């Protein structure tokens, strides 16, 4: 296998892009990524997306975007793993460069959630779960995670406030991110007093609904200096799955797909959690953030709140968690989220993160979840310049 580099990235601000269509959004991100490098052309485009079939009446996303970008007849296809689509696309792109099949690959993700009307968006997002055994009974993505959060609080005796504090940190970080959908600070009370959605989850435990696109260009590491003077190596990448139905898991409080994918990616990159300076993790809900922190090895099980209150996850702490603000504040353009994470960690390792910059970041991690932990994609990135 060849070693793989990320040459450049492009992303749009996450927001309700009323004036932009699916193809235009991705076009904006892709043009930015292409501008930053001197590659001769693209061999393939592998793009993550979840909801276009439901909300934009559009399938065949690969051809649509290749056409829009003027890169036909390059190979182009869409990868779908619910909210993990972007991370899955990164894995597929990595494998296609590492294997020697392609030299220049663009991966990325695009999601246009605001074209859904009257509950269509919630319904479309819910399809990440088991249609016959979860959605059938009136559950949604929120209520499934509420079941997990209630269980966590009961088993570990962790207060509801601890989860609110994680949202507060995410908004503090996101307030410095020019691409964030909700770039403002909040207090613990903002979370506790916000609308109840599915107990104990309130509105401010949840990632917002928004549109966005991110693009990343990869090539073999040995060729990277020819095309860019500032690049990053993907030193580990892995994906794993778990039961689609959360009630089939023997331990509701561990995201086993995250444990397995992280373990594989750490081994591949020959690092441990202690080596990671910056991580962009998948906090769809505050409970998802808490479980992710623990299952990635940044905290013991049931104790994320102790390290959180010690400041371990803040910029300058043991490991900076979500300097972008995470899904909570940067936003969650579902099938693009995994691509945002990789672009953001690349930005950190290239030293281009501006007010979000983690000083001297050498190694970074991304963790992108599909469904309520039914799939996870982890990537480990290393500064190469």
């Amino acid at each position, binding site marked *: 296998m060849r070693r793989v580099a990320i040459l450049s990235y492009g992303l749009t601000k996450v927001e309700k892009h009323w004036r932009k269509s699916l193809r235009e959004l991705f076009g904006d991100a892709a043009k930015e990524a292409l501008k930053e490098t001197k590659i001769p052309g693209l061999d393939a485009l592998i793009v993550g997306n979840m909801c276009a079939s439901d909300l934009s009446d559009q399938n065949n996303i690969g051809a649509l975007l290749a056409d829009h970008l003027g890169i036909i007849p390059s190979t182009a296809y869409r990868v779908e793993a619910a909210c993990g689509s972007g991370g899955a696309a990164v894995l597929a792109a990595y494998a296609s460069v590492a294997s020697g099949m392609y030299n220049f690959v663009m991966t990325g993700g695009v999601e246009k959630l605001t074209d859904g009307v009257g509950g269509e968006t919630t319904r479309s997002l819910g399809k990440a779960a088991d249609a016959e*055994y979860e959605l*059938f009974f*009136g*559950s949604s993505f929120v209520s499934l995670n509420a*079941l*997990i959060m209630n269980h966590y609080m009961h088993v570990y005796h962790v207060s509801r406030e601890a989860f609110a504090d994680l949202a507060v940190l995410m908004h503090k970080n996101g307030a410095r991110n020019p691409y964030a959908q909700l770039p403002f600070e909040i207090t613990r009370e903002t979370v506790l007093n916000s609308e109840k959605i599915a107990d104990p989850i309130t509105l401010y435990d949840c990632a917002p609904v928004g549109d966005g696109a991110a693009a990343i260009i990869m090539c073999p590491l040995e060729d990277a200096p020819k095309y860019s003077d500032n690049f990053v190596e993907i030193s580990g990448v892995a994906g794993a799955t778990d039961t689609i139905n959360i009630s*089939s898991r023997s331990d509701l409080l561990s995201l086993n797909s995250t444990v397995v994918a992280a373990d594989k990616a750490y081994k591949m990159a020959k690092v441990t959690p202690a080596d990671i300076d910056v991580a962009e993790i998948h906090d769809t809900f505050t409970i998802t953030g808490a479980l992710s922190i623990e299952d990635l090895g940044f905290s013991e099980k049931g104790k994320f709140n102790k390290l959180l209150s010690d400041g371990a996850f803040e910029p300058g702490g043991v490991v900076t968690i979500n300097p972008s603000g995470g899904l909570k504040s940067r936003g969650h353009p579902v099938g693009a989220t995994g691509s945002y994470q990789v672009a953001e960690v690349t930005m950190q390792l290239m030293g281009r993160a501006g007010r979000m910059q983690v000083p001297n970041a050498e190694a970074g991690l991304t963790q992108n979840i599909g469904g309520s932990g039914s799939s996870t994609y982890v990537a480990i990135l290393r500064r190469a310049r």
Partner: protein
Amino acid sequence: MSVPRYWREIPERSRLEASKCATCGNVIYPNRARCAKCGSDSIEPYRLPERGKLLTFTVVRNPPRGFEKMAPFVLGIIELEDGSRLMTQITDVMPGEVTIGMPLEAVLRKVSEDGDSGIIEYAIKFRPTF
């Protein structure tokens, strides 16, 4: 929902017909092609127990489309007497009276209806044991 799609899940959703791995004894619900524990495809029919206790629950206040009339309603994960688990609605009880660990029993109830002309969907929910 199409009639065949609803109809083909009746054994599992309305009669709790599960399966058991003939090799390692693992209880499988919903049914799967192979046992996740040992990989065997030797699967036997097995009926889940109809009693258990509440492992965790949530009160749904912002319901998905089709469930507006029911809200607020309770969803729970039930740990059955044989240790297996399933998720369904908790019924015949006020949301404020639901507690973790409460004993529950299976009961057939209406889940939803597809508008004015579609089918009415039933399945097993769980209620407190009296």
